[in-house]
């Protein structure tokens, strides 16, 4: 009797799975279930936040509001020189003698303490804080204000997420990966001519299943700008899932290090269906080798566009950090892509110092959903005629991606997540301040030159000094 029930429930389960999820994935259609789910969830979240605010009011306490507008109001940035002139009050004309005021220290002092309270960089490496609670423990800051009703709702949420959604998603993920591995083998067996066509189809199918495994609700914008063969696709990096999100809509060649174990198997299988560029660990350091292989791949117009994440590390999707210039030196067309996740349904950012890959995937699969928007930007080329170098080109692309995705454009290096900032930047600040003290060295050079010149030149250069 029990076995019968078990058998029936499993059959029902798999039938539902097949009809509603796998078939649409294979055929590429959608029932609209996911957008309905999304809208319902949003309504529930707003209600939850309202309840918490009421609860807090009753107890006469204040709700903790995350500092979405910043903890402090920062002045609009002005140069070091301007600020110190302001500090000194009166309009100072150029003096031949170096000028120092004890009050100068206030400038550095205030800037320093402002950066301790709220700086632009460290907050990019941890998950973004939300305005309204999304019924996940991991993003709750107001434990004390949860009423009974909310707790019940939260408990229900846990049941649904871990009891229904998680097993469903794991099943799908396993199916997707198996297909990916087998798909490679299957394709090899087919007629050589049809190989690329079929491998594309299999590839897209696998990624569609993976996308459903995460309940990722993706909106693609401007698909006419999709990357074409012989180019490089460049995107901002938030999580390893970025690859799945982009590969869901097109075939790309990935670049990366060769891994061992399961990842290695997946990598080798993927190579059978399309040409990816995997580097041995030792080869990664050799920049010329990397550049050559990328260049060769791009020159071959039958090969798919390469997918690169120039930031080099995962950032929390509120900003875009420095793009490494390597991919911009190759000299081919660059197709920028902006990816913006909606953090209300589940934070996609991978904080690699806090979570390993497995716990990250578990968190992803037990969130409500992963909602994101992908914008394909018009292709860009390096303006060699105007003397644009790789770094300037990289910054131009970065600015375009930041503008489209509504992200803050930062010049700081994402590597600061782990590494210390270079001393060069401190030396720049010191140089700027020295200029304020002793005047520009160029000004001093000009004074020297005019002294060697005509008598009129001499007098005119002496006058300002005497006038001080």
């Amino acid at each position, binding site marked *: 009797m029990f076995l019968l029930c078990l058998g029936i429930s499993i059959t029902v389960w798999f039938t539902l799975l097949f009809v509603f999820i796998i078939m649409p994935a294979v055929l590429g259609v959608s029932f609209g279930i996911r957008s309905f789910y999304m809208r319902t969830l949003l309504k529930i979240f707003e209600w939850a936040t309202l309840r918490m605010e009421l609860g807090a009011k009753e107890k006469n306490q204040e709700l903790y509001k995350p500092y979405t507008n910043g903890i402090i109001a920062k002045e609009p940035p002005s140069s070091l020189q301007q600020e110190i002139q302001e500090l000194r009050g009166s309009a100072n004309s150029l003096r031949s003698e170096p000028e*120092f005021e004890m*009050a100068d220290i206030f400038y550095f002092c205030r800037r320093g303490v402002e950066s*301790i*309270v709220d700086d632009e960089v*460290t907050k990019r490496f941890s998950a973004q804080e939300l305005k309204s609670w999304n019924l996940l423990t991991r993003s709750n*800051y107001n434990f004390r204000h949860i009423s009974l009703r909310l707790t019940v709702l939260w408990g229900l949420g846990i049941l649904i997420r871990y009891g229904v959604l998680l097993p469903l998603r794991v099943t799908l993920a396993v199916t997707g990966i198996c297909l990916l591995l087998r798909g490679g083998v299957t394709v090899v067996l087919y007629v050589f001519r049809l190989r690329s066509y079929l491998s594309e189809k299999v590839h897209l199918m696998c990624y569609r299943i993976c996308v459903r495994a995460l309940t990722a609700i993706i909106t693609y914008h401007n698909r006419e700008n999709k990357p074409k063969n012989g180019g490089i696709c460049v995107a901002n990096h938030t999580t390893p899932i970025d690859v799945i999100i982009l590969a869901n809509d097109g075939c790309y060649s990935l670049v990366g290090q060769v891994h061992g174990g399961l990842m290695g198997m997946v990598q080798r299988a993927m190579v059978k269906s399309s040409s990816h560029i995997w580097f041995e660990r030792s080869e990664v350091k050799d920049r010329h080798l990397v550049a050559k292989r990328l260049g060769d791949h791009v020159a071959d117009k039958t090969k798919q566009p390469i997918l690169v994440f120039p930031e080099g590390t995962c950032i929390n999707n509120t900003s875009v950090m420095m793009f490494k210039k390597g991919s911009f030196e190759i000299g081919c067309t660059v197709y920028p892509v902006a990816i913006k996740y909606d953090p209300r349904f589940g934070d996609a950012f991978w904080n690699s110092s806090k979570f390993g890959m497995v716990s990250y995937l578990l968190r992803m699969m037990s969130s409500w959903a992963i909602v994101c928007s992908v914008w394909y930007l018009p292709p860009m080329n390096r303006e060699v005629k105007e003397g644009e170098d790789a770094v300037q080109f990289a910054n131009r692309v970065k600015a375009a991606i930041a503008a489209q995705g509504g992200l803050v454009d930062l010049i700081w290096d994402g590597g600061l997540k782990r590494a210390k*900032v270079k001393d060069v930047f*401190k030396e720049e600040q010191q140089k700027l301040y*020295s200029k304020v003290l002793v005047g520009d060295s160029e000004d001093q050079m000009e004074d020297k030159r005019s002294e060697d010149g005509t008598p009129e030149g001499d007098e005119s250069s002496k006058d300002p000094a005497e006038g001080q």
Partner: protein
Amino acid sequence: MGSRASTLLREEEIEEIKKETGFSHSQITRLYSRFTSLDKGENGTLSREDFQRIPELAINPLGDRIINAFFPEGEDQVNFRGFMRTLAHFRPIEDNEKSKNPTASEPLNSRTNKLLFAFRLYDLDRDDKISRDELLQVLRMMVGVNISDEQLGSIADRTIQEADTNGDNSISFNEFIKVLEKVDVEQKMSIRFLH
């Protein structure tokens, strides 16, 4: 992590900090969240390395001096109370505070206390005097390698000459206050904390 922010800070503590520093309830919880995000060791205190991890502070020429201001004499860790006490110096001075209880001790963000904070940035050995050597060292920090020793020396000499009134070749706190009496300390040493 956000979820620890308001649970580990008890109401009594928040009230005490409010009285001592004058920050509002929401400012204190937000600054506590910032404190915990800087505290990588998750042990409730910040070390000097935690501060140096902030890139914008690491490139500040006086970064080390500012970090030092947070740590009491001889200690290597600062807890949240100490953190808030130091930050309180940068609260803007509000008009209605001036008319409050005149017998109460001077608030941390008074003009005198702001000047004392700056004075201590110069006074490396904490002997309540800025000697020529100390001034030279701080100047060297601010300009790096871009100015020669002789020029820097003459700058230091001139500064001490202008400020020193009792002829002991060093600047005391009162002389420091006198030199800066025309500077708008209230505005320049204040940070606008949002509510």
